[in-house]
């Protein structure tokens, strides 16, 4: 129901300096570099202020997933033009496509594997999924009743996800001596675990830690279809949406194009980079009309404006620029201004109702 997973934001927080593939180029200082391909400079410009190349090296995701990562970064302050963001998504999608994961079944979600996160140490444990699965069986049999199904603790046993001992552990390095002699229950069971079993348990626990992080599989929008479609239709027809949109016109089939969380984002924030089922959703440019003191008027897509200068491209593609002065008139038209004005007026109930209504437009 929901999209493949906002947990893929994970990837953007995830550096793979340890597992970077063999093709990774390195510069003279030994730092890994992005592959040379169209868009590289844009990626460096847009992302490089906060992230190094090893953040994406070794990752692999679909275009849709990469666009979602970029959308998330925009909400965190990433600055670029729509074109530049499109180039970034294109570069990442082409150069870092999904990797075929040996042994991974399509049904099982990818999950935080360990060494990839920029958070924490470089020598973080790399979780072996098969080992973690074996560890889960050991955990279920001997640990879960006190430490809980997600290892977050119960009244009977402490939280292991936040456990300093677990976080210091690497493949059993601290777990083994603890279980051998230190476990409070001392019922003998933990001391009888062999090295491989301890390693399996360690992998399971580190997997629980990774799953808990922002990059984990829990990090996704769960359900936004909580509204009343009829009330949503009524809002649509009374709040002014129907002045520009029609359920049988531009919105026909919109629910087939976008999943519900995307529908919600798209009508709230139409300029957000869309992570739709068909890739990047188009957005309409802001336009400007500039009237010079002599009365001549030029209109077109706004290129750039600040307190001092303004520029645009007219319908023929020609570039025009002016120094802003008191007698130069600049009129800006944002095609989404009606959406922006609604932000101050919506109730959350209105929003949920509209999503429910849009979801009926299959």
């Amino acid at each position: 129901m929901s999209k493949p997973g906002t947990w893929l934001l994970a990837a953007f927080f995830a550096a793979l300096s340890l597992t970077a593939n063999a093709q990774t180029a390195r510069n003279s200082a030994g730092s890994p570099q992005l592959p040379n391909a169209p868009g590289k400079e844009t990626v460096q410009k847009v992302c490089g202020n906060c992230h190094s190349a090893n953040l994406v090296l070794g990752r692999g995701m679909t275009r849709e997933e990469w666009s979602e990562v970029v959308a998330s970064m925009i909400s965190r302050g990433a600055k670029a033009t729509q074109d530049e963001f499109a180039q970034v998504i294109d570069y990442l999608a082409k150069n870092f496509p999904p990797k075929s994961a040996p042994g991974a079944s399509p049904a099982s979600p990818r999950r935080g594997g360990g060494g990839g996160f920029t958070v924490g140490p470089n020598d973080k444990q790399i979780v072996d999924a098969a080992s973690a699965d074996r560890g889960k069986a050991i955990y279920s049999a001997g640990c879960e009743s006190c430490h809980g199904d997600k290892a977050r603790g119960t009244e009977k046993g402490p939280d292991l996800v936040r456990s300093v001992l677990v976080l210091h552990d690497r493949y059993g390095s601290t777990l083994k001596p603890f279980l051998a002699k230190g476990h409070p229950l001392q019922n003998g069971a933990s001391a009888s675990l062999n090295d491989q079993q301890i390693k399996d348990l360690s992998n399971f626990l580190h997997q629980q830690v990774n799953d808990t992080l922002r990059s984990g599989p829990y990090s996704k929008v769960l359900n936004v279809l909580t509204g009343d479609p009829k009330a949503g239709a009524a809002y649509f027809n009374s709040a002014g949406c129907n002045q520009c949109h029609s359920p049988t016109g531009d919105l026909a089939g919109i629910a087939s194009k976008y999943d519900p969380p995307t529908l919600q984002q798209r009508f709230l924030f139409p300029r957000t980079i869309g992570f739709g089922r068909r890739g990047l959703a188009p957005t309409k440019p802001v336009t400007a009309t500039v009237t010079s003191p002599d009365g001549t008027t030029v209109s077109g897509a706004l290129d750039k404006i600040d307190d001092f200068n303004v520029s645009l491209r007219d319908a023929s593609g020609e570039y025009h620029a002016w120094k802003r002065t008191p007698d130069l008139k600049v009129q800006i038209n944002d095609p989404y201004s009606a959406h922006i004005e609604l932000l101050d007026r919506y109730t959350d109930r209105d929003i949920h109702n509209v999503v429910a209504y849009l979801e009926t437009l299959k």
Partner: protein
Amino acid sequence: MKWIRAVAPALLMAALLAAQGLTSEKILHPTPDIWPTYNGDYSGRRFSKLDKINTSNIQSLSLAWVYRINSGGDRVGGAIKSTPLLVNGVLYFTIPDHVWAVDARTGKEVWQFTWQRSRGGIHLGNRGVGIYGNWLYFETPDCNLVSLNIKDGTERWHKQVCDLDRLYYASVAPIVIGNHVLVGVSGDDLDIPGYLDSRDPETGDLQWRWYTVPQKQGDPGLNTWPSLDAAKHGGGMTWVPSTYDPDLNLVYVGTGNPQPVIAGKAREGDNLFTESIVALHLDTGKMAWYFQCSPHDTHDWDAVQTPILIDGEIDGKPRKLVAQASRNGYFFVLDRVTGKNIVTSQFVKTNWAKGVKPNGEPIPDPAKMPQIDGALVSPNQGGAVNWPPSSFDPQTGLFYVNATRAYSEYYIFDTDEKPEGWGGNDRGGWAESMLQALDYKTGKICWSHKWEGAGIRSGVLSTAGGLVFAGDPVNNLVALNAKTGDPLWHANLGEAMSNGPMTYELDGAQYLVAGAGDTLYGFVMNATEPRQ
């Protein structure tokens, strides 16, 4: 002065140890040719008394030099977010794992230091260095406090200040006060307690540690958490440098967001002392008072923004004040002796609080806490202002904040009874940005200059030249008239200004320095005519 009695022995020793270089006295009373701490002085106001660059001659401000950081050809994942320190004509600044010393007159590199031992950690940004005597202090993403010789950048020692395995990291500019190096910590991925360390400038050894959240039975604030376990993992990072009042001998600390960050189900209560302005006694680290800016926050709106000290006047009486424009969109003015609230106002329109308590603290609206199906919240996670520093100008009496009004949709992702880490996040958004000038006596907006475009991560500087310097959303460094907000001058730096600008005077000329991306720009006023 009380302070003299309290700090005199320390200062005496400090003076002996630092017979050369940057003395405690110089840090306390900076001359125009130094910028000795992150904010330029202990008040945090980022106001310079220099007026050789002023409203009359600003159009003559010239580019003097450009310094582009170079770490092996590729971008190293770091914009210059640090405010350079200036000592003996040399600027010292950082990005994560790197320190530079650059000639303040020419932009020529004097030395560069790279932390080669890095074990990892979040490399998003570094706020800069602290300097004392002939020694420099900075923090590394892998949780070390490193001391270098300012002469040549050679390492003197390093000390671990946090636990990288618990997903702490370190990014703060240390602040040196007397014989204390104040060291804050960062990280909010896995439910860890924040703290502020005071460390020995000679050895890096711990003098005291103040935890921002309760760590044991009997600790103050524990009754604002459901359990000691929740409090011990309750967050509250100290990731922006503190300010200091020498007369009161109090340190003013802004504390970060509670953890788990978004899903607050398992931490019901106000969650003290997260998202608070706290006054600590310098010598002991004991808390004198606190004021909570966001009780039980669930939006990542840390209250770490610099608590700026204002010696002002309220109802005709001189008052010692501390003011903060906070990430949650509220402007607070407190009595810095007692912590008593004087002003609470919004510096941008927000929608998350349903009122203000008699004590001045906003009351969070439960409907605007993150929801499974989303809640439309203003501001967004980035906040009405983030870490970039604001400024207070005593000449105009105005507090300047480079502000953003924004909306995003906040979701709960983890419906577990005990969510951990973040457990939710915000998505999407719309924003507009403006430079706000606030009357500190009332919190009222005196003028507002709306920028074209949105999204700002740059700080503010005000000067006796009647100017305010700030970055706009489209890569300009802009000088505005401090009284009116009229934009007077700009330089497009090619990338967004990424730090707080600073200024100094050398050889009779006033310089202005700002960082944008990987480049530091030095401007100078060559015109010498007196101010009109």
